[in-house]
Structures are given as C-alpha cells and as structure tokens.
C-alpha cells in the first residue's frame, strides 16, 4: 500500500484501478500506471498531498488517491 | 494663442482617441489586449465545445 510508504521508499505499482478514473487518466498521461516504478519524494503534513517520482518525473497527488493505489515495495 | 489652441486640440484629440480605444479593448477582454492581435487569426479562446 502507498499509505505505508515513507519519503525515500521505492515501490512498484500493481493495481491502480480503484482510483477515480480522471486521476487514473492523468497519471497515465504522465506515464504512471501499473508496472511503473515510483519513489516517494516527500509527504506534506496534515494529510496533504504526496510527491512521487517516476522516470525522472515528479508528480504531486493527493493522499486520498495515493492510498487507493496498490504498490509493492522494492 | 494659436499655440494654445493647437496644443489643446492635440491633447484632447489624443485623449479621446485613446479613451475610445481603451474602452473597446477592455470590453473585448483578453484578445484585443494581446500582443499578436494583428497577426493572430484565432477567435481567441472559446473552442466550439465547452465541456
């Protein structure tokens, strides 16, 4: 689960289908989908968004959506 | 005296011209204020379908 990852952790996305389809589309546009390797860069306080990196590209997404993404730690 | 009349006419002429121009421009919004307005052929903005 993304929720359990901390800043600096790396993971591989295994299921993204529970996320709202608009967010899914946007992430897909940015090249983030099932099979992508991501790295959590930082986590904002008070349940704020998190910043992840994939293929040298940093993306900010909300915590709410992040916890719906299934990742496997690597 | 003639100088006064000339200066007065010039100032008022310039002022009226720019005043009218400004109001027209502002009313049209972004487009007319755009740098490229002479060469720009876009209809500025609103695509046919706004979702």
């Amino acid at each position, binding site marked *: 689960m993304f929720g359990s990852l901390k800043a600096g952790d790396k993971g591989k996305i295994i299921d993204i289908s529970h996320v*709202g389809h*608009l*967010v899914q*589309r*946007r992430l897909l*546009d*940015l*090249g983030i989908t099932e099979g992508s390797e991501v790295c959590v*860069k*930082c986590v*904002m*306080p008070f*349940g*704020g*968004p998190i*910043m992840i990196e994939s*293929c*040298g*590209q*940093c*993306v*900010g*997404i909300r915590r709410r959506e992040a916890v719906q993404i299934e990742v496997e730690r690597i | *005296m003639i*100088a*006064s009349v000339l*200066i*007065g006419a010039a*100032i*008022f002429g310039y*002022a*009226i*011209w*720019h*005043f009218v*121009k*400004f*109001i027209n*421009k*502002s*009313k*049209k*919004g*972004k*487009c007319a*204020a755009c*740098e*490229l307005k002479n*060469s*720009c*052929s*876009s209809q*500025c*903005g*609103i*695509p*046919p*379908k*706004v*979702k």
Partner: protein
Amino acid sequence: MEIALIGNPNTGKTSLFNNLTGSYEYVGNWSGVTVEKKVGVFKNNIGHLIDLPGVYTLNPLSKDEGVVTSFFLNESVDRLLNILDASQLERNLHLTLQLLEFEKPALIGLNMIDVANKRGIHIDASKLSEVLGVPVVPVVARSGKGCDKLVDVIATKSIQPTKKNLVYYGKEVEEAITLLTAKISGKTNHSARFLAIQYFEGNDYVKDYVNSIADAEKLEAITANLELQLQKLYESKSLANFIYLKRKEVIESIVADVARKSNSDIPLSEKIDSIVTNRYVGMPIFLLLMYLMFMLTFDWLGTPLSDGLDALLTGPVTVGFEKVLTAINASEFIHALIINGLVAGVGGVLVFVPQIFILFFFISLLEDSGYMARVALVMDRIMESVGLNGKAFIPMMIGFGCNVPGIMAARTIETPRERLLTILLTPLMSCSARLPVYALFVGAFFAGNKAFVVLSLYVLGIVVALILAKIFSSTILKSETSLFVIELPPYRLPQFQSLWRSTWDKGKGFVRKAGTFIFAGSVFIWLLSYAGPNGLNVDMDHSYLAAIGNAIAPIFAPIGFSTWQASASLITGFLAKEAIISTMNIIYFVPNDASLQGLLADYYTPLAAYSFMVFILLYIPCLATVATIYKETTSKKWTAFSMIYAFAIAYVLSLIIYQGGRLLGFV
C-alpha cells in the same frame, strides 16, 4: 504555409515560438502556461507559426487541451512541428505516435538536449528520424541552438512521413479499424485511421465529429463488440488502455534503440525540493519569500526609487513644463490642463513604475524557476478544505500581476466547477494596478511598517478568497468531484536575460497604459474638476466631478470615507485601477511642494485609510477583468455575480474594520 507547434506541456513550445517568430509570448516553468492558440509570423517570412497549449494526448480532459483537439479537427494546417522533451522521451512519444497517425507532414524538434545530457541521456537523432520516418532536429529552444537548422528543414524538405502504421494494434483492433474506416472514408479530409483510433480511445471531440458524418449506432456497435472481444481474449481493462499499452510497447522498443543512458549526478532539483516542499518549513518559506518581496518593493528598494522619481517629476519636470508654457505664452486653460491635469495624473502613476517592476521581477522569478507548481502542491491541503484544489492557486498567483491572465490560466483546471470558482475568486487577488494606492497610503499613514501593512492586504485578499470558496462550494457550487494531479517540473535556474524579458514585458503594459488610457483619463478627470455648473475654472468643490462624487459619497460614510474625492476616484477605478491614483493626484493637486501624502492626512485617519485600502482591494474587478470573466464563463449571470459579491464583501469588510476599529479606540 501554416505550421502548428504541438507537444507535451512544459517542453518549450512557446520558447521556440518566441525564438522563431521574434515575438514574446508567455513562458514559464510549469505545465499549462499557454492556454490558447497564438499565431505568429516566422522571422524569415516563410509562413505562420501557431503555438498551442501543451497536451499529453489528443484526448482532452481540460479546456486548454480541448483547444488543441478542436484545432486539429476544425482547421487545416500544412505542417505539424512536434516538440519533444529529450529528457522525457518515453512520455512524449505517446503524443508523437498519435500525431503520426494523423498522416500530415510532420517534423520533430528534439528540445531540452542540454537537460537530457546533464541527466546522462543521449539520444541519437538520426536514428530516431529513421525509425519514425520524419525529420528530427535537435534544438535548445532556450538558447536558440539548432533553430536555424530547424527553419531550414521546415522550409525546404518535403516532410510527408515515410512510414505508415507505426503501431500495429493487434488483429482485432486492426479489423475494427478497417470496419470503422469503411463507414467514414470519403466523408472527411482527415485520416480515417486516426479518427477510428481516437474514437476507440473515447475522445469526445472526435466522437462528436465522427457521429456527425456517420451512423452513431453502428459505430457504437463496432466499438462495443471490439471491447468485448479484447476482454475475452486478453482480459484487457478497457479499449483505451489496450491501445495505450500497444503504443507503449512500440515506444519502449524505439527508446531502447535510440537512447543511451550514462551515469549522472543527483540533480540539484532534488536537493532544493527537499527544502521547499519540506513538511514543516514549506509553508513558512513561502511566506518568508512573500515578505522579502514586499520589503524590497515597498521598503528597501522600491520606495527610495519612487521617491527619487517623484522628486524629479514635481521638481525639474514641472518647472520645465512651466517654463515652456510661459515661453509660448500659453493660455491659463492649457497651463492648468498640462500642469494640474497631465503632469499630476500621468506623473502620479509613473512614479510607481520602479515598485511595479520589482513586483513583476519577483513574479517572473516565481514563474520561471519551477517554484509555482511547488506552491500549488504545498497549498493543496488548504485549498482542498475549501472545495478547491492546489492548482487553483496558480491562476491566483498570476493574478497578483494582472487578473486578466490569471483568469485565463484557470483553463488548466479540469473540473468545470473548480474552474468557475477559481475564475470568480481570482479578482480578489491584489493586482499590480492596485499597488500604487497602497504605496501612497502606507507612505502617508504607516511609514513605520509599510511592507507589513501591504502584506496584510495581500494576505487578506487570499483569506477572503478562501473563505468565499468555502461558502460558495458548500452552497451554490456544490459537487463532489475534485481532481488534483500536478506535474512538478525540475527547477531551472532562470536566465537573467529571460527574466528581464518577461519583467519588461509585463511592466511595459503598465507604462504604455500610463501613456494612453491614463493620459486620456487624466484629461477628462481634470476637465470635470475644472468645469462646473457655474462655468470654467471653478473652485473644485463646485465642479462637476464634486457633484458626481457627492451623489454617491453618503454610501461610504459608514466605512470611513465620505468625501466626494474618494467616491470620484472609486468610480474611475472601475475602468482601470491605476486611474484611482491619477484621479487623486488631480483632485488633491497642490501647486507648491506639499506632497499628496502630506495632504491626505487632512482627509483620512489611519483607520479610514486602511478601510479605504481594503475597499480598493476588493470592491470590483476592473472593466477588462469583467470582460474576461464574461468571455471565459460565457454567462451574464456569473459575470454580474462576480461584480456584486465583490462589492458586497468589500463593503462589509470595510465596515467591520472601520466601525470595529473605532470601537476598539483606533482612529
């Protein structure tokens, strides 16, 4: 010849556009800077270049992306110039493959070679060109390297793509494409294959277009059938996803072919990021930077410069004019027109040019460095709690320069409700035209802590916007959907030259306005103050202007400024906020050395002055902003609403501040 620039957001399309056309369009280091189509002429006159908003695919989500798709469908273009970010090749190629399916002459500008090299990515351009079947020219749009070559290729080569059907989508999809193509071929000028694939991907613009030329039900049946087949055979999630994966396969093999990776050091970007988006210090750093900006603008640097300029204008310049006027024996009317009207009105605004430029410099720095998107990220939590998302903060920050581009920038916000909300609230951001009012009043009343008082006004604007966002989103603009995914570009060290360019470009507008509209306005305001029911050269208190001001002045008595002078300047402020200052300079004109600042103390108490500034901050969007709101919302109702609520909130707040302050014993 018409050439369209297409590419992912933030890949340097506009930078290249500026380079090739010699114009200056808005460049910034975040995604979604360009939100509308812009046309320019090539420097060497070989044709028109069209700059478009950045898109990831041709299937749009937000309105700025829709501009591109409808451009594709409705307008003819001779050549497509696809800009790729060399450091993000894989992501960029998704769009390229779609463009090539469009089967129009195309060429590729491989941009940001410098960035890619720094990251240890080396791309073989000639090999890429061979694989894709179109010319590929490496460029660095920022410095102009390679641009000449690019123009050569555009102008000379025939660049019909040499390869067709780069992507094979598998037997089932290809069969369906053939079926659909048969239904529409001959009825359109566009590539039928392109339309078919976009249709399968669920592109609504294309769907509408195709449905208008063919039988919607039959097309629907083909799609449904295909989807079912794919599900059965490959357990694919959706047709769109299937197509995406097919493209991805092709891209992976292309990239493996053309790109070489070597080791590189950790980008500076990440080090900076660990500080500015740090959990604890992110927010304080933002506020600190704002504070620094205001100290520089209003205290350390801006004020001394403005004072110097003021001394120059009221001293030597006025004396010079007087001399010339006496020499040519000008009439008293002309004398008063020039000295009391123009020098006071136009000069009074020009005095603030240094401060405006400093502010613009900071805004440009914010835009060009990559910090903008980080602020949006840091702000998202707060924005979310009021029913908006962090991206809405970008239009608001642009609004600090001028509200009009701020409102345009709201196009990048995907959900219509959040976009409307952002459009309505952006005018509460204190634009640069309101700055002279603050500068004047803080100089007169709050000399001890100028920057702090002005900062409080800017923050007040933001806070009011957030509170109203909460109110609106829980009453008139209710909806659940909210979307926040933001691309965070790498930091780029802004080049001095481009910083200066964009500062100048923004500041130029202010100076030009002073010479045109403010000039015109000053003439009329002066005339109204010079003439009255009893003839010319009346005492100003009996002029037409006083009569107009007096008519509405009583409304403002409860909030601390019932003079006709205040009312008159508020009226002119609707046309342009700078006009407030020039009106005041004309009304309070004093022939001797006594400055306007000193004089104001006779008319305002400090408390009334603060109330006045708050009122100016909020009271009504200027004419150009109102027109833009109308254009962007295409709704008279919302446009009227934006004016009325602003006035109401301004009045209520000023009332609270003035009456509350009096109760507490301030004066």
